[in-house]
């Protein structure tokens, strides 16, 4: 019998609530030492993501989060029966234990910020044209004209990066105040100023949300996306050769959310 794995939890006790997962199968815990692997029986051979299956997976993880610390497992992790699960637990027990201790009582929030990159560039170009940073290069040859053009682009781009760094630094000060860990990415596209995930202790969720609202009201010309609380998808650290758990997979998470936007209301995705 194949077993579908949802996550690793910090308990060897049975799941008390009735939780139903993929294919409507009952979810249960397979204990190993003081931790457990939460699974359900699985027969389906189709491996494609469907709206129902992704939601069912996420819902099980969220239900588990109500009572346990959970290491969420990559969608569609299917193992070869109870022996397969126990072998996995044996191989990774120490890593699972370390992660569970580190992530106890913490949840993940995602923040994405779009800035008006065209306007920012325009401002930079105007400032440059006013001559503050101009370097005198004569234009008496094609080679020098080439360098002058390149230099203009270089100065504008450097200033663009500098401003992005400045904005991210300021926003991050507010968010980091209530976060235990973070991962931020700058300018994944010219418009996407910041794409960040923060690991927040459950009792600081409210403060974190308030910090977000504060930043949002301070820069109303930027556009914001706030998501969470999620299981700590982006903060599970496993050995490099393991592809079992989600690490730096915010895109997957995002896709998943986008696919099911209708379930969380028109104003949300």
């Amino acid at each position, binding site marked *: 019998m194949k077993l579908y794995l949802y996550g690793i939890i910090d308990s060897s006790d049975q799941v008390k609530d009735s939780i139903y997962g993929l294919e409507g199968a009952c979810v249960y815990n397979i204990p190993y030492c003081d931790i457990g692997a939460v699974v359900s029986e699985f027969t389906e051979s189709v491996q494609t993501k469907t709206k129902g299956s992704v939601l069912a997976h996420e819902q099980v993880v969220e239900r588990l989060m109500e009572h346990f610390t959970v290491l969420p497992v990559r969608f569609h992790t299917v193992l070869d029966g109870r022996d397969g699960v126990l072998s996995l637990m044996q191989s990774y027990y120490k890593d699972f234990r370390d992660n569970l201790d580190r992530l106890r009582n913490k949840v993940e929030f995602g923040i994405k910020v779009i800035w008006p990159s065209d306007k920012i560039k325009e401002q930079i170009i105007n400032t440059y044209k006013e001559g503050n940073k101009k370097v005198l290069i004569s234009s008496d040859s094609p080679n020098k004209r080439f360098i002058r053009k390149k230099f203009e682009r270089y100065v504008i781009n450097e200033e663009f990066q500098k401003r992005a760094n400045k904005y991210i630094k300021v926003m991050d000060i507010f968010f980091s105040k209530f976060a235990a860990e973070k991962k931020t990415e700058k300018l994944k596209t010219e418009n996407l100023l910041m794409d960040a995930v923060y690991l927040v202790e459950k009792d600081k969720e409210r403060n974190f949300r308030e910090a977000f609202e504060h930043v949002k009201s301070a820069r109303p010309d930027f556009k*914001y996306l*706030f998501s969470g609380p999620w299981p700590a998808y982006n903060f599970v650290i496993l050995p490099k050769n393991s592809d079992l758990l989600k690490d730096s997979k915010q895109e997957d998470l995002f896709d998943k959310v986008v696919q099911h936007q209708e379930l969380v209301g028109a104003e949300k995705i």
Partner: protein
Amino acid sequence: MTLNSVVETDFPEEFVEEMEKSQDVLPKKIDANPENVEKGLAKLVLTLIELIRKLLEKQAMRRVEAGSLSEEEIERVGETLMKLENKMEELKQIFGLEDKELNLNLGPLGDLM
């Protein structure tokens, strides 16, 4: 079926668009297989040349900014960079590659360029 987690934004389409754009930019692996091995290798080699060219260009710009290049040196650097850029354009055309393809995702280290 409902989730506790929420995603809140007033601009869902724009965020979806930007996320899609950011994922389109780079392949996770070098696309080299028996059918397109020549293009795959060319892409890898040109990516590395492009990286070196950009580093040279940046270094030159820093020197221009610092005012440490003489008129004669600017002339020579300009000629070199222009020729290098033209040659890269030729090579990209020969192998049917675009600028955005000349990059590599280095996993946790981020993008090469």
